[in-house]
């Protein structure tokens, strides 16, 4: 059982998560309190654990994503909620998803890297769309002639796809070409 002070910390954390409209980190949650009664990380985490437990039987859940904690509707209830939203969920083009996948798994990646894997030129619009969504950003420039931009994914990307770290991405299929037989091919 939480004592009264901890109960109050839990309540403040709870309302803030509901009011924030985005995930809040433990540090941001600590920042809600004035310096003199700011709880340490452990007590904030304790409050978060208590909330997770409290909502475990409810249709909304407290989840942790890359940039912190947020309340969200359990996915089994999404079909009902979708009806509230007039706009249909956006469907992304394959070109955009493939570009995103290459950046996500190969980061940091240059445009050239993306093009050599996909075998086609990368459209500027796709890169810009990804940047505008803040899923991808330039984190530097490769030290080769032309100094091409190096792209990487962001926390916004992880948050959007409910991931805590890049390690949570579905594993990339492995290449099998090494097994390719090295015997000279037969003329066909």
């Amino acid at each position, binding site marked *: 059982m939480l004592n009264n002070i901890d109960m109050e910390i839990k309540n403040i954390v709870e309302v803030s998560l509901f009011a924030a409209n985005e995930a809040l980190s433990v540090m941001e949650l600590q920042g809600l309190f004035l310096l003199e009664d700011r709880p340490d990380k452990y007590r904030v985490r304790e409050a978060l654990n208590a909330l997770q437990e409290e909502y475990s039987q409810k249709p909304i859940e407290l989840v942790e994503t890359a940039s912190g904690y947020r309340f969200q509707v359990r996915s089994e209830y999404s079909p009902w909620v979708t009806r509230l939203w007039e706009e249909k969920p*956006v469907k992304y083009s*394959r070109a955009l998803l493939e570009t995103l996948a290459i950046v996500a798994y190969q980061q940091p990646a240059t445009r050239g890297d993306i093009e050599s894997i996909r075998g086609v030129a990368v459209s500027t619009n796709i890169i810009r769309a990804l940047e505008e969504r803040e899923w991808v950003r330039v984190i530097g420039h490769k030290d080769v002639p032309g100094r091409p931009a190096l792209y990487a994914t962001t926390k916004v990307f992880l948050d959007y796809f409910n991931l805590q770290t890049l390690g949570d991405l579905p594993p990339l299929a492995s*290449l099998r070409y090494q097994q390719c037989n090295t015997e000279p091919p037969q003329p066909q």
Partner: protein
Amino acid sequence: MEIKNTSDNAVPIQHPLVLVDGQPLQELPENLYIPPDALEVFLETFEGPLDLLLYLIRHQNLDILDIPVLKITEQYIEYIELMENIRMELAAEYLVMAAMLAEIKSKMLLPRQDEESSEEEDPRLELIRRLQEYERFKRAADDIDALPRLYRDNYLATAELLVDKIEKPLPDVELDAIVSAFQEVLKRAENFSHHQIQREPLSVTERMSRILQKLTDDSKEFLAFHSFFTPEEGKSGVVVTFLAILELCKAGLIEVVQGEPSSEIWVKPIVE
């Protein structure tokens, strides 16, 4: 924010039917495994030559590790020719791939000298490696698409906060940031051939006097704001006129009035 379909290397195809020189194409290449109606959306359906090759291989349950190059090459080239016949604008990548396949094919048909063969790589290897690499990311793209996603599979649970208007600090912006943003935009805009940004030597002062002239010449008390703009002058002309009107306003020589938001704007000379 919405993202429209941004695959801009997909060339819109206007042919409702497969036509050659205005005549419907009766015979399709025999070994074609793509249904004829898919031809129309050929460029939109495939993400490039690798994607098309993967399709051809998968569709025949061929082993990617042992591609019958001859067969695939022939099919691929038949496609390319068909596309050219119906005057579809083909992305250069498709032609490069055709050349690469033809090269592999010729290498494989060439009699090899024994001592060389041990060192020489199977000419298919590089292609196989690229196809597999592409396929990995193609799958990864599907995997990412399947991840639970905000506003499709997950929705934030929020509660209203009732307080008197929260004073949110407004972001600060430096003028430099605007200048560099515009330069950045212009640099990019140069890539769009259809969009030309021109700077013409138009003088604001000269335009100011022209506007005043127009206002005094015309006996009317008000002139519509838009009547000062000549679309034929292009954007810069419009900008110069606008700047001139602003300058005249500031100098207290004219007044710009508007009855209500979004209604017609009027310009009126201030007579002392």
